[in-house]
């Protein structure tokens, strides 16, 4: 039989008591924080995984932030294009009226002024700013006004061939390695015939890059000029307007195509956003599984610990009262 010293008997008791107390403190800390893995050493693999998963989660959350940002811009563009289409319909009415003939110069001036008003309306739509005060339809040259009388209404924004990426607008990441570009510029909304960068003005012989570009504004300018040109006679006006109406139809179609384009992109990002939300949920579940405490389990452990502590206290008090000196008188 092993000999036990009195100190040993007491120390063993104290050791056991301390173990019970430490266990109780650990359980209460897990319950309090809701996490069973609170520091790397608790479970190195789980903690390491959580660091990665949390970073992944932030990443995916950011994708949805990018989507939100894209959606805001797309809504701004769609809104502008709806107003633009509306204006174009009214322009077309003026064109049809003009093409019908039987107008005297006063009627023609009234039509010209009406068109001038619509030209201003359309150019303010084309030069609309986004929420940050940057031109919405200038491509990446967003500090440059895309269309103005000063530059003969030739598109001044970014053209795809001027960029490394071949895209006139920037793209943002909406899921891992998946990018969506804003896509619409003044060029693909308003320009119907692309100009030649090496175009030379046939009258002056001077270089006039993109001078032969055909767009909504130039078509309307031509219409206004024709209406005001007294040399264009009563019967000639119909003929002059025929090609202009064709141009306008073409331009209207382009604007609708741009709107469709934006709509398609919006549908696409809606799907991606939903997938991202699912991914975030999955990541949260994984993080939870890795580091969260099972409260039911912890509470039952705590109850067991309390029962052991109570039992220990009772027996310890009894045992430590027993010694021969207490019976010696």
């Amino acid at each position, binding site marked *: 039989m*092993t*000999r*036990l*010293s*009195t*100190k*040993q008997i007491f120390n063993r008791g104290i*050791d056991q008591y301390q173990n019970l107390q430490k266990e109780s403190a650990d359980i209460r800390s897990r319950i309090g924080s809701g996490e069973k893995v*609170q*520091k*790397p*050493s*608790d*479970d*190195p*693999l789980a*903690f*390491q*995984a959580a*660091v*990665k998963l*949390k*970073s992944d989660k*932030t*990443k995916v959350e*950011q994708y949805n*932030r*990018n989507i939100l*940002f*894209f959606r805001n811009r797309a809504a701004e563009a769609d809104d502008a294009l709806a107003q633009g289409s509306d204006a174009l319909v009214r322009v077309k009415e003026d064109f049809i009226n003009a093409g019908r003939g039987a107008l005297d110069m006063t009627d023609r001036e009234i039509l010209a002024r009406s068109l001038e008003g619509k030209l201003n309306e359309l150019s303010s739509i084309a030069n609309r700013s986004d929420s*940050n005060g*940057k031109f919405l339809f*200038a*491509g*990446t*040259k*967003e*500090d440059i006004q895309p269309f103005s009388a000063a530059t003969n209404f030739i598109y001044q924004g*970014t053209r795809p061939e*001027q*960029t*490394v*990426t071949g895209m006139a*607008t*920037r*793209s*943002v*990441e909406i899921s*891992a*390695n998946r*990018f969506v570009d804003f896509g619409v510029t003044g060029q693909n909304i308003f320009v119907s015939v692309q100009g030649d960068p090496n175009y030379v003005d046939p009258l002056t012989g001077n270089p006039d890059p993109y001078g032969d570009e055909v767009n909504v504004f130039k078509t309307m300018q031509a219409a206004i000029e024709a209406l005001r040109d007294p040399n264009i006679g009563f019967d000639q006006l119909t003929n002059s307007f025929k090609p202009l109406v064709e141009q306008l139809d073409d331009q209207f179609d382009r604007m609708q195509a741009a709107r469709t384009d934006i709509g398609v992109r919006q549908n696409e990002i809606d799907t991606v956003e939903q997938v991202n939300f699912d991914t975030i949920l999955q990541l949260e579940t994984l993080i939870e599984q890795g580091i969260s405490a099972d409260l039911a389990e912890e509470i039952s452990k705590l109850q067991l610990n309390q029962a052991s502590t109570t039992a220990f206290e009772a027996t310890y008090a009894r045992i430590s009262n027993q*010694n*021969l*000196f207490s019976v*010696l008188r």
Partner: protein
Amino acid sequence: MTNLTFRNALTGLRSSTVGLNTTSNNIANSNKEGYSRQINVEQFVGSAITGSGFQGQGSEVAGIKRAYQNFLGEQFSNAKSKQSFFTAKTEVLARIDQLFADENAGISTALSDFFQASQDLSGNPADIPTRRVFLARAEGLADRFKSFNGVLSDIKNNTALQIRDMTKEVNSLSTQLAELNRTVLESQAKSPNGMPDNQLLDERELVLSKLAEKVEIDVVRQNNGSVSVFLANGQNLVSDEVASELSVRADESDRESLSVGVLQRSGNTTNFVELNFSKIEGGKLGGLVNTLKNEIPSYQGQIGLLAQATAQNINQVLQQGFDLNGAQAEPGVSNGRGLFDFAGVSLASVFAGFTNTAGSSLTGLQVDYTRLDDTDFTVRIESGGVLIHPDGKPEEVVTLTEDPPGSGSYSFDNGKLQFNLAGAQPGDKFFIKTTRNAADNIQLSFDDPSLISISGAPDQIGDNTFALQLVSLQNRAVIGLDGQGFSLNDAFAGLVGIVGDDTRSAFVSLGAKTSIFKQAESDLESLQGVNLDEEAGNLLKYQQAYQANGQVLSIARELFDDIINILR
């Protein structure tokens, strides 16, 4: 006949008095650390020849014995030593573990914040408020590196401080031990029965176990009764009445760290003989030095590497772009239009050997990484040439070129090391800590938001080409370790895993060593410790013996009186 009875009673009275003394002393010391219970050793007293043959002449206490065995004592000390090693280690590692547990202090969240700001910038490249947030996040990232590494440095300094204190404690214990060697021998010489003072022996064993708790030792018990102590590498710490002194000095290979050694005095000169702790697995000092030399520099090296990788990769991206003013990276400016710089501080620290030739130097150190890693290097000059020794890899000879004179270069797996040696002689050494200063000095290069160069073309402020490249850095493997690549966040996560593993395994070892210690403690205590019930029994035993002997004396006296009365 009554003569013998008197004698028996008196010796019996004396023996039981000694017994009562011993028992009461045991009771008095029952809680004293290191006390060994004492036991009366009664010996036979020669018999007297009487008319009835041989008759006993009473009892005699030959001496008082300690309940102690050197074997159990040493087992206890060794187990305590091994446990203390891990106690010290876990105390330091637990602080680091806690640091890595704190998400708000970690590099990971700062990286995430920075990449979020990069994403926002990709959505809104020309927007000044967005650019300001980006700069603020970048600065937050740099600050995080500094503060994170700062906490590691605090832990390192604190560990070094504890090592200093610990050597002082060891020195105090060695001196006590040498003094006890002297007093034990003295008491032995004075003792009539040649047995030294039990209390001094207990004190000496206690000092030995405290010494073992601080530092791993070998104990040699001399025949003359004195005790010699050797350190694990064979250095003598205490020999008879002489104690050597432990001391610390800056580490040769890393002046920001410490070495522990024994001071050897001969005549007027004192030599510092460094202790090699690489194989030591005992003592608090061993645990502290082990952590100071292994885990802490390794973690700091990796944080430095991460800071360097962060700055380098982000700078590389931004140096290709155009800023809001349409300007590209400035030629001739060291970091161009990079986002981060290191305040002009060299990223690597170079430490020259203590015994290097005067005037010998290694300068112009440049490390070009194809893939970042945190390998440190030692450059050794030998008569045969210059040797370079990457940590954990074999040494290689480097041929110096003459253009410029003394310049050497060494290609390793992940890059190329270039340096310039001047005046170096065989025997000289240089220690290169490649990423030492990165985390402490990383800072933002500029605070003008318009200077962030993320556009792919000078006239397109809305272009986000390089913001997207920044974003893609988040997933790109930019740090190479053992041929595998890690992204910045994965590299940090990997380090978190390593810290967790190291800490956990230290705690597991501590648990194992603690059970061994508890067993050894129990083995010793069950021999050495006082059991009060037992002593209560002894008390009764000696009390009754005393009373019985008194009774014998009383009867002997009555008998004597009776005889006297008969004769009267």
